[in-house]
C-alpha cells in the first residue's frame, strides 16, 4: 500500500471523528463570545461524563444512576487538594482520578453483581451517600457554602483559564477520550462487553471474566467523570454540592440514552441535547427544562420497565430487540 492510499483509507475510516475534531478545535478562531464558548466547553466535559456512561450502559448493559458522584469526587478532589493541601492543579486532577477509580472499584465489586433496577438503586444510593458527605464533611468541603478560589490550570507559564485556551484543553481531552472509547468498542474488549450484555452465561463460556470486565468499565467511566469534574472546577473556580446530586446523574443518563446506545457516538449527540436543550428552553420559560427532562425520563423509564420485566422472564433477547427498535425509531 502506498502512503497516499493509506492516508485516504485513514481519512475515510475516521472521517466523522476528524470532521468533529476540526470543527470543535477551530471554533475559538471565529467565535469570540465568552458565553457561548463556555457553553461549548461545558459540552466537552459533559461529553467525557457521557462517554463513560455510554460504554457502561450501551456496550456492557450496566446502568448507573450515580455518575454525578464521581464528577463530584473529581471536582472536590481537585478543589481540596489545590486549595487546602497545596498541590498543583494537574497532580490534583490525576490524584482525584485515582481516588475516583479506587472508590469505583470498591463500589463496583459488590454492586455489579446486581442487575437492572437493583443496580440502578445501588448506584443511586452511592450518589446520595457522596452528596451527603459533601454537605456534611464541613471541615473539608465547607458544606453547602462550597469551595471558592480554585486555581486554574496552566502549562509552563501559559494560563489555561481563559475561555479560548480552556475550550481547546477541554475539547482536546474530550476528543482523546472519544477516540479512546471508539477504539475500545471496535476490538476485543468492546466485543466482550457487548457479549456479556447479551448473555453473561454465553460470554463466560467463551472465556470472558464478566465480573472483572464490568468493574473495569465502571472504573473507566468513573475516571472519565472525575477528570471532567476537575476540569469544570478549575474553570469555574467555585464548586458546591448541589451540582453533584442524583438529578445530575439522571440528566447524564437521559442524554446518553437519547443520543443512542448502539455506539459511543450517541454520547456526543446526547451531550449536545442535554447542554443545548436547557439553553434553548430557558429563553421561553425557566421551568420548562425540568418539565421536558421529566417527560424524557418518564418515556425512558416506561421502556426500561418493559425491558426488565421481559428479562426476568428469561427472554433477554426480546428485551434487547424492543430496546433497539425504540432507539432506532
Amino acid at each position, binding site marked *: 500500500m502506498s502512503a497516499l492510499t493509506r492516508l485516504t483509507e485513514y481519512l475515510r475510516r475516521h472521517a466523522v471523528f476528524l470532521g468533529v475534531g476540526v470543527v470543535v478545535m477551530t471554533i475559538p478562531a471565529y467565535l469570540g463570545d465568552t458565553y457561548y464558548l463556555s457553553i461549548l466547553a461545558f459540552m466537552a466535559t459533559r461529553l467525557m461524563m457521557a462517554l463513560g456512561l455510554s460504554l457502561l450502559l450501551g456496550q456492557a448493559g450496566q446502568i448507573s444512576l450515580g455518575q454525578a458522584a464521581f464528577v463530584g469526587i473529581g471536582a472536590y478532589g481537585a478543589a481540596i487538594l489545590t486549595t487546602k493541601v497545596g498541590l498543583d492543579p494537574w497532580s490534583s486532577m490525576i490524584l482525584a482520578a485515582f481516588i475516583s477509580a479506587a472508590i469505583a472499584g470498591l463500589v463496583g465489586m459488590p454492586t455489579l453483581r446486581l442487575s437492572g433496577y437493583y443496580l440502578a438503586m445501588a448506584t443511586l444510593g452511592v450518589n446520595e451517600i457522596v452528596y451527603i458527605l459533601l454537605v456534611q464533611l464541613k471541615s473539608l468541603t465547607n458544606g453547602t457554602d462550597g469551595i471558592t478560589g480554585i486555581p486554574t490550570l496552566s502549562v509552563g507559564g501559559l494560563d489555561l483559564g481563559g475561555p479560548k485556551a480552556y475550550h481547546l484543553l477541554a475539547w482536546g481531552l474530550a476528543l482523546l477520550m472519544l477516540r479512546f472509547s471508539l477504539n475500545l468498542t471496535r476490538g*476485543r474488549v468492546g466485543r466482550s462487553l457487548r457479549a456479556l450484555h447479551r448473555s453473561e452465561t*454465553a460470554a463466560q463460556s467463551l472465556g470472558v471474566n464478566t465480573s472483572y470486565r464490568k468493574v473495569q468499565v465502571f472504573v473507566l467511566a468513573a475516571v472519565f467523570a472525575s477528570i471532567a469534574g476537575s476540569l469544570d472546577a478549575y474553570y469555574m473556580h467555585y464548586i458546591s454540592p448541589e451540582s453533584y446530586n442524583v438529578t445530575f446523574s439522571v440528566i447524564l443518563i437521559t442524554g446518553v440514552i437519547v443520543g443512542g446506545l448502539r455506539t459511543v457516538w450517541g454520547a456526543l449527540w446526547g451531550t449536545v441535547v442535554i447542554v443545548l436543550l436547557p439553553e434553548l428552553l430557558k429563553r421561553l420559560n425557566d421551568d420548562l427544562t425540568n418539565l421536558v427532562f421529566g417527560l424524557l425520563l418518564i418515556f425512558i423509564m416506561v421502556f426500561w420497565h418493559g425491558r426488565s420485566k421481559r428479562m426476568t422472564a428469561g427472554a433477554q433477547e426480546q428485551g*434487547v430487540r424492543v430496546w433497539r427498535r425504540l432507539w432506532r425509531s
Partner: protein
Amino acid sequence: MALLRVERLSKRFGGLEALREVTFSVHRGQIKALIGPNGAGKTTLFNLVSGYSRPSGGRVHFNGEDVTGRAPYRMCRMGLGRTFQHSLVFEDMSVLENVAVGRYSRTKAGLLAAALNLPLHRREERETVKAALEALHRVGLDHRAKEVAGNLPMGERHLLEIARALASEPQLLLLDEPAAGLNEAETSRLAEAVRRVRDEGVTVLLVEHDMTFVMDISDEVVVLDYGRKIAEGPPYMIQENEEVINAYLGEELET
C-alpha cells in the same frame, strides 16, 4: 489417559438429588453421548463440568487436573468449550462477530491496548477475523459470516454456537442437545460437522434426545436415570440393555 473424568459426582438442589455419584470418563478423540429421560441430570452434569454450578460431592478432572468448581471462564481457557440447550447466540451481532467473541480466550489485548489501538491489538484483531472465518468454515457456515445471527434458522444457530466454541480452540466440546428442533437435513449436516470436528482432534461429549443421531454418531454412550448412571458402553450394547430399555428406550423401540 482420560481427557475428562467425573468421579462420584453429586448435586443436590434442596431435597432433590439431581445427580447421584456419577462416575465416567471421556477419552481423547471420542464422541461420547449422555442420554436419559428428562430430569435425569444431564444438563446438571454439564453445568458441573463447565463450572456453572458446584457439585455437592465428587470431583471433576480435566486434562489431568482437578478442576472441581472452577469458574466457567477459566474452564474455557483450559480448553473446554460448550454450547447451550436454548441457543445463546448473540442475536443482534453478526455471525462473524459472534465467533470473534470465541477468540477472546486466545487473545490478550486489554483495555489500554484496545483503547490505544496498539500494534498488539491490531495484529490480534486481524488474526481474530481470520480464525473466526476458519471456525465458520469448519462447520460449513462461512457463507453466512455477514448475516445477523438472529436471522439464522435453528439448525444454523446450533452450528454457529459450535463454531463460536471451536474458535476458543477447545480440547473438549460439550454440546447440549445440538439436534433439538432440527429437521432431518439439518441433523445430518450437524452430524457431519461434529464428526469432522472430532476427526480434527476435538473430543466431544453431547447430550441428545434424538436416538438415531446419538446411536449413529457416538463411540460410547452413558445413560442417566434419576441422577444415577444406569449403563455405559458402545451404542449396540446400550440398545440391548434391559434396564435402559425399561427406563428410556422402551417405547421408542417397540413402536
